[in-house]
């Protein structure tokens, strides 16, 4: 049963591959798993402020074009301060990461992808981690943008590009040339495991320097609630048509009628 040199080499190669594979698996296993449902971090009484709510908008370094755009938005929003959320528009990246409206947010991490779902509008963004990426020419610009991530130690480092030109609901603009550098990590805060989110928005059109954001999230003891919004318009249209049908009138209500009813309520 004595093995020859070839058999020994094969055995050594197999063992080496197994050990290396196991080492990779251990390294992977040691990466933070952000999976969970979170809410804004609340610091204990007398130990500083939580940083989940509110905006980084106190003194934005706007370019002249940025100022013009902001002023224009103020006119468009009008005295009643219309905002996109009222019309079920997505917040986009990074606004949704600020948890506007104080809703919970869900992280689902699996191998080469981190999926983040904000309760409002079920707004979803996907961060592709590692080599598996969409080719740049195949990336459809969106409010969420395209997010590519990699690990630096225990920090998930993400670059978000391919954003649509837009404005958040406070009126702060970002252009389609904006990029967002993001970092996700865990830290211990007062004995509580806190997910730290940091972002720096670089936008040569609207900002003279990067705008930095930092948010902290803590585990949320509850569930995400299904949040339908846009579909309400459809059902309200059906309601109007149902009313017409019951009244023996022509069933001809249009979406513009739905908006009229909504405006009358405002």
């Amino acid at each position, binding site marked *: 049963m004595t093995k020859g040199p070839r058999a020994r080499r094969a055995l050594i190669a197999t063992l080496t591959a197994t050990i290396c594979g196991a080492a990779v698996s251990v390294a992977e296993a040691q990466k933070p798993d952000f999976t969970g449902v979170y809410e*804004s971090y609340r610091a204990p009484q007398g130990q500083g402020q939580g940083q989940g709510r509110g905006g980084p908008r106190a003194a934005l370094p706007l370019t002249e074009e940025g100022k013009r755009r902001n002023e224009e938005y103020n006119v468009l929003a009008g005295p*009643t301060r219309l905002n996109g959320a009222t019309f079920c528009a997505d917040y986009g990246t990074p606004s949704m990461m600020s948890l506007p409206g*104080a809703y919970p947010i869900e992280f689902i991490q699996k191998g080469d992808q981190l999926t983040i779902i904000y309760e409002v509008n079920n707004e979803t963004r996907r961060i592709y981690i590692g080599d598996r990426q969409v080719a740049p020419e195949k990336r459809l610009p969106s409010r969420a943008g395209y997010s590519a991530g990699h690990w630096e130690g225990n920090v998930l480092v993400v670059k978000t590009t391919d954003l649509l030109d837009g404005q958040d609901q406070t009126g702060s603009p970002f252009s389609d040339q904006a990029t967002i550098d993001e970092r996700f990590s865990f830290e211990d805060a007062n004995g509580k495991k806190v997910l730290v989110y940091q972002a720096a928005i670089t936008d040569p059109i609207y900002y003279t320097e990067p705008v930095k954001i930092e948010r902290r999230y803590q585990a949320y003891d509850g569930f995400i609630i299904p949040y339908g919004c846009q579909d309400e318009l459809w059902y309200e249209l059906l309601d109007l048509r149902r009313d017409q049908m019951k009244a023996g009138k022509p069933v001809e209500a249009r979406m513009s009628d739905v908006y009229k009813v909504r405006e009358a309520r405002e």
Partner: protein
Amino acid sequence: MATRFKAFVVAACASALALCAAVATAHHSAAQFDFQQRVTVEGTVKEFNVTNPHTWAVVELKDDKRGTRDAQFEGHSASHFYRAGYTRDMVKVGDKIAILIAPRRDGEDGGFIQAFTVNGKTVGFGGLSPETGKREGASE
């Protein structure tokens, strides 16, 4: 009921005025409401739609000064309603309801719902316990 209700809702929202307003402004064009004021109105439910992005209700109000009329109210999203303690079909057409509102700035009927009591059950917003009227958990 009204007195007890008023005591609760005033305590509930006075301690979290900023939060109530902050949550409201996330979805709503809140400029028409005065979130520094609180008014309690009582009436009969004609419509109560707990929906997104915000709830709306029509309540029949009646008083000597202005007679009987319908008033429209806005409120938080369905998510916030359910988290605050609202349960399906809690409010039905014909129910008597007391609502604590941030009133309209123009003085007209209507406002933004901050809390309400119907059929002996109270729901308040702003991370406040409907049972105790106190903020749950640590402060911001």
